[in-house]
């Protein structure tokens, strides 16, 4: 552990709940379960953090599900992404080993569907408070008095700048 505690702003809604078992897909409202599993494999291939639990990637896919339910165009792009990812090799995308998954994604890089999946994974994965905690981003601070007494100047491995510089 890195000894920090990460906080979301208390005014914001809590993280999406996600089940630990395979029943997590029951929370999907619009995405097909095969599509969701393939997108999950894509998210883990795009941003592979071996130390992160599966549930943070599942939350990304539940965000995709919300996007798809708000936007038919997004739903269409997710479906296109999965169709293309599955059509490239003799195995479905999510059954491929990592190097083959990477190769498939590289081939798709210039497509609008890839762009949506890649950008949206960044948008939601690195906005997850469990990821913040893992990577040392403490987040919201005003409700805790800011960082003025919580380490805004505690770096001690370089010389201290002269006062008033």
């Amino acid at each position, binding site marked *: 552990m*890195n000894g*920090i505690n990460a906080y*979301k*702003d208390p*005014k*914001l809604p809590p993280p999406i709940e996600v089940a630990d078992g395979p029943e997590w897909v029951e929370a999907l409202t619009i995405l097909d379960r095969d599509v969701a599993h393939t997108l999950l494999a894509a998210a883990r291939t*795009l*941003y*592979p*953090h071996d*130390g992160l639990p599966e549930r943070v990637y599942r939350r990304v896919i539940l965000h995709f599900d919300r996007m798809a339910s708000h936007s038919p165009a997004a739903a269409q792009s997710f479906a296109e992404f999965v169709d293309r990812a599955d059509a490239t090799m003799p195995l479905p995308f999510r059954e491929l080993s990592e190097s083959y998954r*990477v190769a498939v*994604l590289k081939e798709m*890089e210039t497509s609008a569907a890839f*762009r949506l999946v*890649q*950008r949206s994974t*960044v*948008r939601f*994965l*690195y*906005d997850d408070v469990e*990821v*913040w905690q*893992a*990577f*040392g*981003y*403490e*987040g*919201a*601070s*005003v*409700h805790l*008095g*800011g*960082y*003025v007494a*919580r*380490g*805004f*100047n*505690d*770096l001690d*491995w*370089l*010389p*201290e*700048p002269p006062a*008033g*510089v």
Partner: protein
Amino acid sequence: MTQYELDDAGVVVIIGSGAGGGTLAHELTRRGVDVVLLEAGKHLTAEDFVNDEWGGYEMLSWLDKRTASGDWRVARDHPLTPSWSCQVVGGTTTHWSGCCYRLIADEMRARTVYGDIPGASLIDWPLTLDELEPYYHLAEAKMGVTRTNGLPGLPANNNFKVMYAGATALGLNASTGRQAINPIPYDGRPATIQDGFTVTGDKVGSRWSTLNVEIPRALATGKLELRPQSRAVFIEHDAAGKASGVVYVDAAGTRHRQRARAVVLAGNCVESSRLLLHSASGMFAHGLANGHGNVGRYYLRHIIQTVWSVFDKPVNMHRGEIMTGMVDDFVRHDPARGFAGGYYVELNSMGLPTTAAFLDPGWWGRDFAGVIEQYAHMAGMLLSGEDMPQAGNRITLTDELDAFGVPVANIHYDEHPNDLKMRSHGYKTMTAIHQAAGAKRSIEAPAYPASHNLGSNRMSAKAEDGVLDGQGRAHEVPNLFIADGSAFATGGACNPTLTIVALAIRQADFMTRQMAAGAL
């Protein structure tokens, strides 16, 4: 709040409540002028703001569609949001990081000092630094800029310690710089608690904004009517060619026409240019004040880029004020560097969500993952430098209409060779600073959606070179003014807000003198 009738032709109508419009509203009303301030966004308060990067972005940003073209990387990375400003009472002063540097004399004489640069359309400003300096003083006092008016500098934070160690090892001059953020209580506002969230609205209020300083004081004069959620869609003129009113749409979708004694556009570059281009008529066939075809042209967005570096030990750059550091060795024009103009290196931090999003949009895979996992060990710096005005870099109208029936704007930008030379020089400088402090890896990150939007309705001594005279008044429409960064004749290197505020104070002086003389 005071209310004015829609057919009251005695009011000055200001469109936009940010650094220029919000300041001008205060400066006019305290001189006794009646003002209606139209703001497209909502009137939020500190209570509404969140300490959350995406939450704040979605709450404050102007997210209406725009399109982008040209060879700038922003067109590829952010094709529908090439420019970044805010749609909220207070405008982009609800978002800014508070850097307050002055233009230098050479920058205001760019054509004379830099010479005739092929492909660039440089001009000198139609005013000198000597004329602007008294207003810089007034702006710094009202904004509470550190290291002015007896205020100390902000203290060194973790990210600055890295910058300082690297810069001093290279013999460069680093300091925590000047910001409109209180190191100690000032002007009724508290000292910073180093929360690191000025960019999402500043819940604490230690940073100057028009939302927390200028607009409340303007309202207290009894001379201001603030109309939030009022989207200006057209500027009308009379038979004599003077601006006569502004058509706007309220929150309920109802259209109104506010008559006006004078109209001031302060909607940031893209919106001010878009509104002028759209306000075409028989007399102004190509848009208001656009007889020379210069509205929207010479768009500038500064040379903005970031270097993020990874260190062996923790930095925790997210703790504390975001931009409290600068290196000013490269500000002055020096032909020996091989390019014209100069740049500031400024401290910059971001939280994990936006560091990941802007590190290199489109980058994925194990290499990216290995870098971003070390977020707590990352330090950052941003470059703000002068880009070259070019005739082809411009805001134009597309065939697509927005929800209000106004054409969506396109922003075209091609980088000038001088821009690319400065970018390369700047990346080398910033990387060298971090390497000198022990960085094990440095990443050259590209520009974000443009937040220093400048120049597209520029001031010029000669009408054929720009849109406005030296008071920010349209060459072709004597009671039409602009009070935002689009008025800049050239971009200079520094963050533009302080200059926008100084120009707005000066403009208020001019407008009230004109009114007293019966000329406005």
